[in-house]
């Protein structure tokens, strides 16, 4: 099987190299064929691996594929850990990536950077697979940075737009903050465990529970808490948790297929995956779990509110993604790792579907993204309409659809959790359900129902996009409906086996499993729970306010002008960063510039060393005069210097 694992990771890389370096040679259709074949192969082989491990019951594979270097006893390796958690991620990543590849043929049809785009998304798929298949921290970090790199490249794909370059820079800077924490966390692991291998670290972790480190003299901190929080800071950057979430909405400047693949379904969930993978570490620190839960709860509720006031179709979905990532993080904090991963999977399907459907609308509207200038699209684009409806219902957790199972489990898990933060988190995730339904169906009604608010010219060109666009929508709609019924083995069964670790102190999943009596009774039970009625209330509010009484929204906006301003201002995170961090950095910079820089650094060090470098270089150039006797003179001087040296020392 080892060759199969290798092929799964490398097939997209081969496609990326062919499309990237030989794009001109193989042409546009060549570029999409090689990358789609590569990713398609990955998907099929992932299914094979699923059969081998899950259906045929082979045990987890943990092996080194390649040892790059051994330095001071720390082995730097490429290796695979293929357990059931990895397999689930592999299938989700390769499937969604394949759908997005196919969709891109239609979406990027007229773009001059066609081959470059395919090369990037195939490279992304390779990096993401390396990340999830890794069996050690070094490779995890490599994949982590590589998916980030491709993400920046793709956010700035239309590099002639200033807003795209701004968004790309912002994503890069915010992620640096997260990655800094992440790198420190890995360094701490390397330092205290003397290995970078997952299995070795997890095996040694229980003996480290009482270990402390003194970062500041006299205040010992629990090693596990420090390591977990540092790693989680990395996850906050990548998975866009408050307050490191600010880059994700701006990342919508990238082409829509990217928003679906990278900024909704896969890359942003890398943080969730990482924490679940590290469950043997996180389970050892209640403090870290409380932090995770609070951050997740804040993200889940407050980012949802912002979706209600956005008018850009992609940004509404972006805020929805933030909110859903918050749900997954809450589940991690509640030790319901399997529920988090389950929600990650269902979310990947329905959110990719919603993004691709939004892209379909955007193509049909000639790159109009403002939902105030849409309306009544139902009759022009039936496939997009029905698939969007499925996606939206799955998102709000309509009983029977995929999102219902995963989200309800999370809410139950938080309810059952005994951590200090669980009270607040339960309130947040429950109210979040109402908000989710409100913004989802606000967008849905404003786009597909209500009166048409566009001009005659747009109407005359309005039609359903070609099959390469609609087929992926339909293919994604299927798992959005049915994936939830897999809940029995994945969440409550023993699907994950040893891949995820629960400590006895956090018996949340055990309690839930006790109360679980099959998927159908779970649905019936859901109908009587508060979450379902919150969702229905949100849906009804959206329907009433945006289709029946459009004035109501305006009145509410005038009545609660301050609230509206806060929301439009996105709670001021951007302004705060702009003023405090950017401005503060500029201020401190100005001070340092005036006080230290101009005089000390510029005057002496920079200009000084530049002057010394320039001067020396000029001297060197001068010495290289071209006259032979100068050269001979230099040589004789050197000889004399050596003679004196040796006589002196010898």
């Amino acid at each position: 099987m080892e060759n199969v694992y290798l092929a799964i990771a490398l097939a997209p890389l081969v496609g990326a190299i062919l499309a990237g370096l030989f794009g001109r040679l193989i042409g546009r259709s060549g570029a999409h064929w090689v990358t789609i074949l590569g990713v398609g192969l990955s998907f099929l082989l992932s299914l094979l691996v699923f059969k081998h491990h899950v259906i045929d019951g082979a045990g987890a594979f943990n092996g080194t594929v390649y040892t790059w270097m051994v330095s001071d006893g720390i082995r730097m390796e490429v290796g695979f850990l293929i357990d059931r958690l990895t397999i689930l991620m592999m299938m989700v990543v390769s499937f969604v990536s394949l759908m997005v590849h196919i969709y891109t043929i239609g979406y990027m049809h007229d773009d001059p950077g066609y081959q470059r785009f395919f090369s990037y998304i195939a490279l992304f798929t390779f990096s993401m697979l390396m990340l999830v298949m890794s069996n050690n921290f070094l490779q995890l970090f490599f994949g982590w940075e590589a998916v980030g790199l491709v993400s920046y490249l793709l956010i700035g794909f239309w590099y002639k737009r200033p807003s795209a370059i701004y968004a790309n820079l912002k994503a890069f800077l915010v992620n640096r903050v997260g990655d800094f924490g992440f790198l420190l966390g890995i360094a701490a692991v390397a330092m205290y465990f003397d290995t970078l291998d997952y299995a070795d670290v997890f095996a040694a972790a229980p003996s480290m529970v009482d270990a402390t480190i003194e970062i500041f003299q006299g205040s010992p901190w629990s090693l596990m808490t420090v390591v977990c929080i540092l790693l989680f800071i990395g996850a906050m950057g990548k998975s866009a948790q408050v307050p490191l979430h600010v880059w994700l909405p701006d990342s919508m400047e990238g082409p829509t297929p990217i928003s679906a693949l990278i900024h909704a379904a896969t890359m942003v969930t890398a943080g969730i995956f990482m924490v679940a993978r590290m469950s043997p570490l996180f389970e050892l620190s209640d403090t870290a779990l409380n932090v995770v839960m609070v951050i997740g709860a804040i993200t889940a509720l407050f980012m949802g509110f912002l979706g209600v006031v956005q008018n850009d179709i992609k940004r509404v979905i972006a805020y929805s993604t933030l909110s859903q990532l918050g749900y997954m993080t809450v589940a991690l904090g509640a030790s319901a790792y399997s529920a988090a991963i389950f929600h990650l999977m269902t979310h990947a399907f329905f959110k990719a579907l919603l993004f691709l459907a939004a892209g379909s609308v955007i193509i049909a509207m000639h790159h109009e993204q403002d939902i105030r200038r849409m309306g009544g699209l139902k009759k022009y684009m039936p496939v997009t309409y029905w698939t969007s409806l499925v996606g939206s219902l799955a998102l709000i957790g309509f009983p029977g659809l995929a999102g219902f199972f995963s989200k309800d489990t999370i809410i139950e898990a938080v309810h059952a959790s005994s951590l200090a933060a669980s009270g607040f988190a339960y309130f947040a995730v429950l109210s979040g359900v109402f908000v989710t339904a409100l913004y989802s169906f606000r967008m849905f009604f404003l786009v597909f129902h209500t009166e048409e608010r566009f001009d005659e010219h747009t109407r005359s060109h309005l039609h359903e996009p070609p099959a390469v666009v609609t087929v992926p929508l339909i293919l994604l709609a299927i798992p959005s409906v049915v994936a939830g019924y897999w809940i029995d083995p994945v969440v409550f069964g023993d699907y994950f086996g040893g891949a995820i670790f629960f400590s006895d102190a956090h018996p949340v999943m055990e309690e839930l499993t006790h109360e679980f009596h099959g998927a159908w009774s779970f649905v019936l039970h859901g109908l009587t729970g508060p979450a379902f009625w919150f969702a229905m209330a949100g849906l009804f509010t959206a329907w009433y306010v945006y289709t029946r009484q459009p004035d109501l929204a305006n009145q509410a906006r005038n009545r609660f002008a301050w609230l509206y301003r806060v929301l439009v201002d996105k709670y001021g995170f951007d302004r705060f960063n702009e003023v405090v961090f950017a401005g503060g950095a500029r201020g401190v910079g100005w001070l340092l510039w005036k006080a230290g820089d101009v005089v000390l650094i510029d005057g002496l060090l920079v200009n000084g060393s530049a002057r010394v470098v320039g001067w020396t270089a000029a001297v060197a150039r001068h010495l290289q005069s071209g006259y032979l006797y100068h050269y001979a003179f230099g040589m004789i001087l050197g000889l004399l210097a050596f003679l004196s040296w040796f006589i002196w020392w010898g």
Partner: protein
Amino acid sequence: MITMARDLPLLWPEILVLLAGAGALACEMLRLPRTALAVATALLLAATALSLPLLSLDTTVFGGTFRVDALSVWAKLILLPATVLALLLARAELAGSDREGTVYALLCFTSFGALVLAGSGDTMFLVLGVLLSGLGAFALVAYPRDDAATEAAMKFFVFASVAGAVMVFGLSYWFGATGTTLLDDLATPGLPPAAIAIGLAGMIVGLGYKASLAPFHFWAPDAYEGAPVSVAAYLSVVPKIGALFALAQVARDLPPGSGWSGAVAAVAVLTMTWGYLAALVQDNLVRLLAYSSIAQAGYFLLGIVAVGASPLALLSLVLFGAAYAAMNLGAFAIIQRSGRTLESFAGLGRARPAVGVAMVLFLLSLTGIPPLAGFVGKLLLFGAAIDANHTWLAVIAIVNSVLSLAVYLRIVVALYRQPAGAPGVPAGGALVTLVWVAALAATLLIGLAAQPLLAPLV
């Protein structure tokens, strides 16, 4: 005296290299340059193959005067393939020119000189190697017969003559002190220190000129600029590595505490710093790479100061030698296909993505960025220097690597800049493409396969 019957089989690679030169010359006399190329290439590859079985040996031939040890065998395994790549580059650049076959012959003879250097166990072989690898090189630089080439060759020749004379003069003191020409005898206790010192100074001048170490490097930028690009590529790799390996051979026999390692460390600092500082202001890429190759020679010295003090020393010299040969030949090959000035690189990375990526990888490897060959080589060199208690030298080398980033990034920036005019990108010939692809493969392989390559060597 040991019998010829034992010694000759150990020298098959050298004999084949000589035959390659002679064969190429014979073909040239018949006006068959293509055959000359084919004969030289085939014999050089055969010589490479015949070197492989010698890898496990550590012995000498001709009464201890010539060594067949790891350093000398690895020199063959690195320099002979490098010579083949240089032959192909020369063919691409000089095909159809008058006396084309002589170029191939001269390249083979010069490589022979470099191999003699790398295996010397005797001062006579040092002198012979310096002369053999010099005579061919002068003619190669002068090959175009225009003013620039003639001037470059003339300077090169006069400079080499002076350096060679100083070297022979210095080595005569060693002969006077030890009574033999064998390097082994330098370790005899009780030799007069002044005689050893003068000999050492002379040898550093001679080999320092050959390896273009500061302050004996002045000829290099001028000679490379006047010479054909392929010849510059060759001179920056083959004779240089030969001379540096010869220095390592001498260092193995020097008595410790004679102050030589401090002197070599000082040369290393001067060479690295001077090379990169001067490279910083060059706009002509051949000159820029000439200075870069001077600086890189300084990195080799980190391994040489550690000879005898660290088990990593020989290993790091061999690995960095292979890495340097691959990445430097690759960078020169791309200059040969794309033009000698920084301006001619503008926009190349956009017009030819594959060539652009290859050049970026060569430059990053020269800087020493993981996971490329240059990184692994430099890491080992730093390790060797630190083992040998020259930590300060490793720190200076690392600082210089930062400086080198500024040198090489100038080229990277040019690669991806929008060209001012219409991009007139010349299509590279198949031979040049073959050379850089091979060099790229070696650069990646040495970098990525570090552990598998190292494990059997350690």
